[in-house]
């Protein structure tokens, strides 16, 4: 069973202020393959960042954003592990199902 995030909490988790490359954040609760609830952040970023060849520089940037979102969730009292997925702007509308 999955749960819905309370609207005020969801808004808090999805606020921006994560840098100029981040266009949108959505937070949902999904289940991972073990049936555990996971707080899943989908972060839409500019194509030139998401579609760039993977590098230490982009990795550090993504990692920093993911850490910020996990700290945000912890401060909001969400006890779940936060999975953070970065989607390219052009891919975001085409993706219909994401894994936890």
């Amino acid at each position, binding site marked *: 069973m999955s749960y819905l995030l309370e609207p005020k909490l969801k808004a808090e988790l999805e606020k921006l202020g994560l840098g100029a490359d981040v266009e949108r954040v959505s937070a949902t609760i999904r289940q*991972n*393959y073990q049936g555990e609830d*996971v707080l899943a952040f989908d972060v839409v*970023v500019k*194509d030139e960042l*998401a*579609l*760039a*060849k*993977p*590098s*230490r520089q*982009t*990795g*550090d*940037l*993504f*990692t920093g954003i*993911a*850490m910020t979102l*996990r*700290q945000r969730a*912890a401060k909001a009292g969400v006890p779940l*592990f936060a*999975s*953070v*997925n*970065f*989607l*390219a702007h052009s*891919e975001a509308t*085409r*993706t*219909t*199902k*994401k*894994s*936890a």
Partner: protein
Amino acid sequence: MTLASDLLDQAQHLALVDPGRPRQASLRRAVSAAYYSLFHLIVDDAVRYLVPTASLRAAVARTFEHKDVKSAARTISEIQRGSAPWLASHVRLPISVALASVCDTLVDLHDQRHAADYDLSATFTRGVVNSKLAMAVSAHGNWSRERRSHNARVFMLAAGGLLVKR
């Protein structure tokens, strides 16, 4: 070159192998290879730390369970974010952001690896996969800085099932 770095290179190669529309098979294998690169990076260091006899290390490495490594990683991350699970009494606070990010990336890649290998309803995009690989590259770099720290050693001991909840 180590197995871990070769797997990371392979993951990057697979992610870029189809320049146009990427095949799901390539993207899925890229995610899987990225997870295994990080898993073997940590297990390799753990057995070097734990086992002085080089000829025995491969056998000891085989005893590391994915679920134990994931559980240890998740616990280290929870401590860094202010929780106090059982492992907290063994670490020296604060847990560095670098070590916590390695642990977070490992937990995330573990779940993604399972989806990549078994969940046929999941769709992987190049952007998602590139970002996972970039975070794996970052985790390799952060681990090289952290691997000799006290807290990294606590993590490795827990990952090997040598520190357990009483």
